[in-house]
């Protein structure tokens, strides 16, 4: 087995790198740039029950070392995704993590039921943290009981392991993580974007048509690292870490904080080859620090002390 191999519920990955949801479409665009079979896995764009057009444009804005997006969950709907998008990924033979969104519990449940029954889908990622649509699930993402409740119901119908994607826009990420753990989640994805905004100083108008958007990119990495560090000490679920990762060094930092696999989002826009480049770089860095298997990296920052550390 390769030294980069990692194994998470439903996701048997030849390396810990997968693109983050919404930053890689359904894969076919990047398949024109490189052979996707080098990836550890792929997270596909959020699926809702019916197709959605999303928000008006402009949908993106640049910020210092980051970007704002307010795409608004545009997608063709779960049926078309199952018909057209997922089959196209078959040749690459990599685990597929299907991101799921909705406005109501019923929508989440139905989308999960449909998508998790595809033999190609390895696991589902419950997006209860999209800040960009009025009914994008953010109500579940900041309210612990609703999140736990939804997790329980989705788990009941899912044929595949369920990862819950946490919003960083909460007072206490640990309590949120514990709530969904207790509700039966198989893993956590964290973090989604921070809610942010940018105005044109000349006019005072927001750049985004949606006004606010989700902040991603290197700017938010310190928040992601902190939250993964805190949560990994208090729950025993595996964590797919994300938030500002753009280099192999970032991947090892995030795994040290407690992540078992790492998703790369915004960095794909900066460099479409970023995922394969990171994957190529990882063994060199492991050599540099004398670590044989990358899975040993997970949680190094806390393992070094005998008792778990709380950070404040």
């Amino acid at each position, binding site marked *: 087995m390769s030294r980069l191999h990692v194994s998470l519920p439903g996701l048997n990955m030849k390396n810990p790198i997968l693109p983050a949801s919404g930053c890689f479409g359904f894969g076919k665009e990047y398949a024109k740039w490189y052979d996707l079979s080098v990836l550890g896995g792929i997270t596909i764009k959020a699926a809702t029950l019916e197709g959605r057009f999303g928000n008006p*444009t402009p949908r993106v804005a640049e910020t210092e070392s980051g970007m704002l997006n307010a795409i608004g969950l545009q997608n063709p709907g779960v049926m078309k995704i199952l018909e057209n998008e997922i089959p196209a990924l078959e040749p690459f033979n990599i685990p597929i993590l299907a991101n799921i969104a909705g406005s109501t519990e019923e929508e989440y449940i139905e989308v999960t039921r449909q998508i998790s029954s595809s033999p190609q889908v390895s696991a589902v990622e419950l997006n209860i943290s999209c800040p960009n649509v009025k009914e994008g699930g953010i109500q579940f993402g900041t309210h612990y009981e609703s999140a736990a409740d939804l997790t329980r119901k989705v788990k009941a119908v899912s044929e595949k392991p369920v990862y819950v994607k946490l919003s960083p826009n909460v007072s206490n990420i640990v309590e949120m993580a514990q709530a969904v753990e207790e509700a039966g989640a198989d893993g956590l994805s964290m973090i989604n974007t921070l809610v942010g905004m940018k105005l044109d100083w000349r006019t005072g108008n927001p750049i985004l048509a949606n006004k606010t958007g989700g902040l991603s990119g290197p700017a938010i990495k310190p928040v992601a690292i902190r939250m993964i560090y805190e949560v990994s000490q208090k729950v025993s679920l595996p964590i797919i870490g994300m938030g500002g990762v753009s280099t192999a060094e970032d991947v090892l930092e995030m795994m040290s904080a407690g992540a078992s696999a790492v998703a790369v989002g915004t960095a794909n826009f900066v460099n479409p080859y970023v995922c394969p480049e990171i994957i190529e770089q990882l063994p060199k860095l492991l050599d540099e620090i004398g670590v044989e298997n990358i899975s040993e990296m997970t949680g190094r920052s806390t393992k070094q002390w005998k008792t778990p550390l709380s950070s404040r």
Partner: protein
Amino acid sequence: MKKHLLNITSNIEIARNIFEMKLTGPGVGSMTTPGQFLHVSVGNQSSKLLRRPLSICDVDQERKEVTLLYRAQGEGTKQLSHKSAEEVVDVLGPLGNGFELAENDHNRKALLIGGGIGVPPLYYLGKHLKKKGIEVTFILGYQSIEDSFYIEKFKDFGETIVTTVDGSLGIKGFVTDAMKNVVEDEPVIYSVGPAIMLKAVEERAIGLRGYLSLEERMGCGIGACFACVCPTETRESGYVKICSDGPVFKMGEVVL
């Protein structure tokens, strides 16, 4: 599709805040279609993450040299304007679908209408159309004489009508003010500029065949992030992505 590291051969201000950047490298070989764009990184190690879409303005395949014209307005393009010869620029491209070159229209006329920083791609387009023997007319709209550029060069390919908002050069007004008799003339329309201009052009050109090149803020530039969509009534999905389905669309195809 490819990422290229191109070397700057020159980067000079040719009008107020308008820069002409020439870049060379083997990657230029693939840049053959007018209307396509490059997704340009403005700095290394920098806090400006997103690439800037810039149209291909001209290509010299012998020298493997591509020309971009850009306005240094925001932080990113200003950063680009500070780069000097020999420095390297990281670009993705060529991206998007360019202009259809009206193969069957060789005995017809073409009217190329560009506003402001929409002017650059018309240069490479005009060159191609002229080579095909099509009679080309340009309408180029600028804010004022200080903002105008490349006018003499456009004249190599066809009649060139200039409009300025303040009247300091050519016709005072907008490009549409120079669109007399278009419908009778029956040219194929090719237009690039802000949405509001494209809308006005479309209204003046009802019944004609034409192509519009759209602008929108982009994330990936390659069709993956859904940042740059535009509604359409002619496609089943209900939208197009400007970066990968466009930036050039048939007139009437998108809802401006």
